[in-house]
């Protein structure tokens, strides 16, 4: 096994189970639809909060889809294979997370303008929303990967994993929606974007190492 063959195998595996990605996207759509139906469908209410709604929906669908990331390979034993493959586990994890991110975020970024329009997000903030999604979601996936690895051996770990991981998502959501709001109010937003990027970069460094520790602890 090489890093490239692992990458190819991951892409293929994801392609064959593409319904899982579609399900996560459908979940995203459902959560977005809940807000106008449950609170207020008027443009006056939705327009200022649209960015926040889309961010919350994105975070929830990411945490749900990341939860099962290592489950199948844990059950069929390929996770053990990765550990003994002689390749560096953190790099393999980084590749896997990257593949997942691409498969889920590309369609989600394509869907975002549609839902921004449906939630009456002012069109000049759309660019900002997309920028925060691009900067922030790698962090969501990387942090989620730690939680998924932690709970991979538990039979009913899904709820526990969501409880563990969502608090770590709060800063990313807060800075993202703050940046969108700052832009709408005409305030400087560069610092907020920089913070968002810093969180994702930190997660990029820490997460693969932590995830591999968790996987090694779970697989015996």
């Amino acid at each position, binding site marked *: 096994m090489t890093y490239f063959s692992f990458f190819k195998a991951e892409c293929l595996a994801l392609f064959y189970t593409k*319904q*899982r990605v*579609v*399900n996560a996207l*459908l979940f995203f*759509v*459902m959560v977005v*639809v809940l807000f*106008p*139906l449950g609170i207020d*469908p008027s*443009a006056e209410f*939705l327009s200022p909060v649209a960015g926040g709604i889309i961010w919350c929906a994105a975070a929830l669908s990411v945490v749900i889809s990341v939860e099962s990331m290592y489950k199948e390979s844990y059950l069929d034993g390929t996770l053990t294979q990765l550990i003994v493959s002689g390749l560096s586990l953190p790099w393999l994890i980084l590749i896997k997370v990257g593949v997942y991110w691409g498969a889920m975020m590309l369609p989600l970024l394509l869907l975002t303008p549609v839902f921004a*329009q*449906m939630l*009456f997000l002012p069109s000049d903030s759309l660019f900002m929303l997309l920028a925060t999604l691009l900067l922030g979601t790698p962090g969501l996936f990387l942090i989620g990967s730690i939680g998924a690895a932690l709970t991979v051996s538990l039979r009913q770990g899904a709820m526990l994993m969501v409880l563990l991981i969502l608090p770590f998502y709060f800063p990313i959501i807060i800075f993202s929606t703050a940046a969108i709001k700052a832009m709408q109010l005409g305030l400087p937003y560069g610092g907020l974007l920089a913070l968002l990027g810093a969180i994702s970069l930190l997660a990029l460094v820490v997460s693969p190492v932590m995830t591999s520790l968790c996987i090694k602890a779970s697989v015996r």
Partner: protein
Amino acid sequence: MNWIWFHKLGSPKWFYQWSSKWALPVFSMGLLAMLVGVGWGLGFAPTDYQQGDTYRIIYLHVPAAVLAESCYLSLGVAGFVYLVWQMKMAPIFIKSMAPIGAAMAAIALLSGAIWGKPTWGTWWVWDARLTSVLVLFLLYMGIIALQNTLEDAALANQATAIVSVLGLINLPIIKYSVNWWNTLHQPASFSLTEKPAMPMEMWLPLLIAVIGFYCLVVGLVMWRMQSEILLRERRTQWVKEKVMNHGV
């Protein structure tokens, strides 16, 4: 009443042979009627005195919306038939029809959005009619997701049948949403009891387009069901002969 046709319908082999005869004629007739209706509406129907020529989107929007609802109704009936009589053909029908219905709902939503921009000034509003059609689309996607996710065929059949029947509750909500709630959306263009509100020259091509869409969908669903029958009945002798004699 003679129930033989009903029992025959339960036999995949009989349906395959029967539909092989009818799928192509029905499909091509539908395509023709659709082209005639849409072409007539696009080029020859009179201009609307309020909306100008923008209203010509109606010749796609209304047929797709009617079909999206009818397709779901048929899913619900098939689901009921499966739950009561365990008829083999019902889940095949549901599986073949769900993607078509989803496409119809998508067309209705998209054409409605593009129509809404110049007439209402917005792509989308969260009004009852639009939202319930969005929910209809999500129901279709849910059924498709269920079929693709569940690996156990018997469980998948049962589950999709149940969801199809449950989703029927959405149909009256769509149908009467324009009457029950104050919405931007105009009332129905078709009614069995009342005279159409629009002039005959506008209404007739619309009717032809709707009939065309119906035939198109029936033809398509027959083709899809045939593929599904081949796949599910692959252990029988007649499928084997059919496939081996087929040149691909």
